[in-house]
């Protein structure tokens, strides 16, 4: 049996996937990233290698690394851009999906996928934390809640209190003020989700990605955000069968499989 690996080193989480020759996922993992990207990659890879009974990366036919920045996995056979890997990961999971909104720890991307899983176009905001995972962490902190509890809060809201601040820092101040004024927490949460959804809409439009869309990255598990995006985009967001946070690593592993099988 041949094994193919993909490792996606993110700012918050590192993910790794191992596939067989047929593209079936044999092992996957998600760990919190350390400050040293290579160390994070080695730890994640060791976990998935252990799960399939392999001793080291050398036993993989091909390993591809990815993540924000370049050469995040220096011991990989190759490093490919995370945008390409996300697109491929979603394509092998559900070939009908044509577009992705990827909300990571520190950036937001809109990606349009071509028929073969490659990238047709993309737009990204990596200059500002507004609308990223960092933004949600700051908001959950203001609410004194876990991210998981915060993500469900807006689903109960009957109204939306709009958040006017564009900047994460100012938005946090605005939210604290609203909470202090005794405004309904679920309605404030709905305002926060809506603010992010509007930014995602802009990213998606920029990339020409508005048809048959899905979410990837950690924030894809935020039910409140998914609900807000559906309201803003006026289309149903496709749920993926595989953990959306794994798409980057899955795409990297799929590229590894294609290159390894072609060799």
């Amino acid at each position: 049996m041949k094994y193919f690996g993909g490792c996606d080193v993110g700012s918050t989480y590192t993910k790794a996937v191992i596939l067989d020759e047929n593209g079936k996922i044999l092992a996957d993992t998600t760990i919190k990233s350390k400050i040293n990207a290579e160390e994070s990659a080695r730890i994640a890879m060791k976990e998935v290698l252990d799960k399939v009974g392999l001793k080291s990366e050398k036993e993989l036919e091909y390993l591809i690394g990815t993540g924000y920045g370049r050469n995040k996995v220096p011991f990989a056979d190759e490093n490919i851009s995370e945008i390409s890997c996300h697109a491929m990961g979603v394509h092998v999971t559900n070939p009908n999906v044509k577009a992705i909104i990827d909300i990571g720890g520190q950036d937001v991307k809109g990606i349009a996928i071509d028929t073969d899983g490659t990238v047709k176009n993309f737009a990204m905001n990596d200059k500002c934390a507004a609308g990223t995972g960092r933004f949600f962490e700051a908001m959950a902190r203001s609410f004194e809640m876990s991210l998981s509890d915060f993500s469900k809060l807006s689903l109960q809201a009957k109204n939306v209190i709009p958040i006017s601040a564009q900047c994460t820092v100012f938005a946090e101040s605005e939210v604290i003020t609203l909470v202090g004024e005794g405004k309904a927490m679920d309605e404030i949460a709905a305002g926060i989700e809506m603010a992010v959804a509007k930014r995602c809409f802009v990213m998606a439009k920029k990339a020409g990605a508005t048809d048959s869309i899905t979410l990837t990255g950690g924030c894809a598990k935020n039910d409140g955000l998914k609900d807000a995006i559906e309201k803003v985009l006026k289309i149903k967001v496709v749920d993926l069968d595989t953990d959306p946070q794994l798409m980057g690593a899955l795409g990297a592993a799929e590229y590894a499989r294609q290159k390894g099988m072609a060799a």
Partner: protein
Amino acid sequence: MGKAIGSERLGDLYTGGKVKKRREWRGVEDTLYDYKCWLGIMGMLAKYLVRPHFLKGFLRYRWMLNYISVPAMIDKHTVGLRGNHLKIAHEEYDLVAEDVAKLLDTAFKADRYCGNDEELSKKIVVLDENEMFAIMNGFPTLKGISWETAAVYVAVLLQGDAVTGYLDAIQEMGLPGDVCPMPAAEAGTAVLDDFPLFGACAVQCNTTCDGSLLGNGIMARRYEKAGIPVFQIAAPLRHTEEGVQEYAAQEIRNAIKFIEDCTGEKWDWDYYFENTKRYNEENRLRYSWMEMSRTDYPQVIGANLALYAETTYMAIAGRVPDFVEADRRITKLAQESFERKEMLVPEYRHRAIIWGVQAQYYTDFLPWLQNCWGILPLVDMLSLVYWDQLSEDDPEQAIYDLGKLYQEMIMRNRTHGGWEVLLDDLWRFCEYYRADMVILWEHISCKALTGMHGLFEERAKEHGIKLVWVNHDLMDPRVIPKQNIRDDVNRYMRTVLMEEPIDPSLEVLDDDKLW
């Protein structure tokens, strides 16, 4: 390394510091030629520096320290060039360097704090950096001098972080940080009193945009306190409309009268038309280079076109015969290379239109596009200016011509005047120049262009053009460093086009400190 184009891994010359390891070896002939030009530049710089008023200016104004890197600026814009393309570059840069040296020499001679030559000062009209200089074309005994050009525009060309101190100064006064750095830097220079004071009068202009009114206002107050009267040419925004042309012409008449009243000199039509004939020839020659760029063998492209076109169109405007002579030599060199089908880089992969306003701290981005990815920057927005030939004998028409020139100053002719000149014209140029790609400079502090972002995306999709957005902050490299600019292209080339660079050593460079 050697004579052949692409024979050196250009990225290996970077050290992470201010200077490169060594200069390029371009083969015997081209290296000796470049060496000869370097000797010329060093001699020219020394010639001016030894003059007492010039030395005084050098020691007085902090922005003058950037000028020690003039040879490095020429090196970075000639990177990778060989043969006639190298000669074309030197024709341009060496001449512009000397012209700027002359500007500084005149400025410091007249400056109250340096040479204090009052007689000379009375013959000077102070102009903005972002203003057509053609108003001087009818005054044979007067000089139009822009200290802003030297202190801000050229300074940043030489050293990317040249004006960050001035930006900090004006922001300490309360100016927000997201304002265009160009007028902000001008204003900062003014509040720190770090500019030479001279001139019989000043003629400012509202080009490129409202940002210039900010800087102009602060400087006008300073000038008037020093006894230098100021006139503002208010060039209309909607320059494509017939209805504003009379107003534009009247502004020119008013400016001419103002200069006449302040200096005692009279407008001379013979002198004006003599300059106009040269200006028309310069423009014809430049169009011929751009016409060559429609073919498979473009010759005068990228930085060789962009920086030079800005200088001749806006600042020289036909007044300096040396420039027309240089243009004729450049045309001859370009024609020779075109007939021999000579290429600038080993592989041509994409033909690009460069749109938007360049990052002033990274004008050598265009040579990088060529050398790293084989993307040919055929023409740029700042070179696609007023096309018509001006009248060479009709004084009445000439006033309207000047009015039109002032409205259609570089950048201004596209960022104002409606969406057609900014948005729709781009796709026509893509077709005209057979371009498959647009590199769109997105100056994040520019309110004129950012509002059109979505429309650009839609149109690019309709026309099937690869649109690559490149973010920058004009004169503040702290906001978006050069590697981020390169990464905008690197990411697109690898992710969407799945290409590998022609020269991989250029993909990632440690050049934040580089001159």
